[in-house]
């Protein structure tokens, strides 16, 4: 396994933003790599995470489980009703990945950007 490559970068929006440039397929064999890398970053102090999915060719429900888990690690304050996460956002999902995001309703709860600067500035 180990088929996922995650390059970690730092950007400055209104707040510091940790950017994960993810490359590879996120499936049941690899999703824990993403989850573990996020837990490691959060443990080290990351409070805002931008997941760049531009090089992800495939993402199944395991990938969404990882993102769900990351969102809950970062969204510690409880807010009633419908709202989008302020601390985890997605960049550049392509093709089937973008379609499945909609099918699973994640677009209602996560902001999705196609421009990295705009995404970073949104934090």
């Amino acid at each position, binding site marked *: *396994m180990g088929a996922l490559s995650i390059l970690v970068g730092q950007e400055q929006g209104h707040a510091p933003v940790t950017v994960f440039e993810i490359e590879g397929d996120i499936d049941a064999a690899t999703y824990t790599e993403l989850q573990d890398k996020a837990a490691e970053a959060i443990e080290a102090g990351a409070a805002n995470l931008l997941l760049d999915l531009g090089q992800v060719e495939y993402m199944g429900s395991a990938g969404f489980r990882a993102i769900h888990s990351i969102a809950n690690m970062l969204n510690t304050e409880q807010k009633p009703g419908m709202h989008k996460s302020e601390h985890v956002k997605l960049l550049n999902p392509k093709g089937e990945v973008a379609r499945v995001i909609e099918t699973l309703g994640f677009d209602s709860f996560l902001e999705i950007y196609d421009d990295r600067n705009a995404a970073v500035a949104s934090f």
Partner: protein
Amino acid sequence: MVQVFELSVESDLGNLKAIRSFIKEAGTSLGVDANTVADLCLVVDEAVSNIILHGYADHVGRIDIRVASNRQDLTIRIRDQARKFDADDVETPHLDESLQDRAYGGMGVYLIKKLTDEAEFKPVPGGGNELRLLKRGVVPAK
């Protein structure tokens, strides 16, 4: 003419990518459009992941996948020798609930049902399970 594609693999998560490639090659050979092929890769990946993680769990077994065209319809049959699986036991995810309130899991079976015209889970006499998936009208007429 009926065209058949078959693959038999061990229940190893490391085989998921090869299984998706097999479905992509079979679907593309049959002339199925790219979006439908992508949906079928996802559906089969979800089904096989469930078999490996929850069916066979801590032991290894075989998974047999058969893709067949029947006129304009496409069927995929996935068989295992794992413990009995009942799709009715899997709670449907509440997609309108916030991520904080939403339970983990259930998305795989949801996607399997959502992205196919029929998805029938049934036990195989003598042990194991069979999942039969149907997509209607996706194979172009020759």
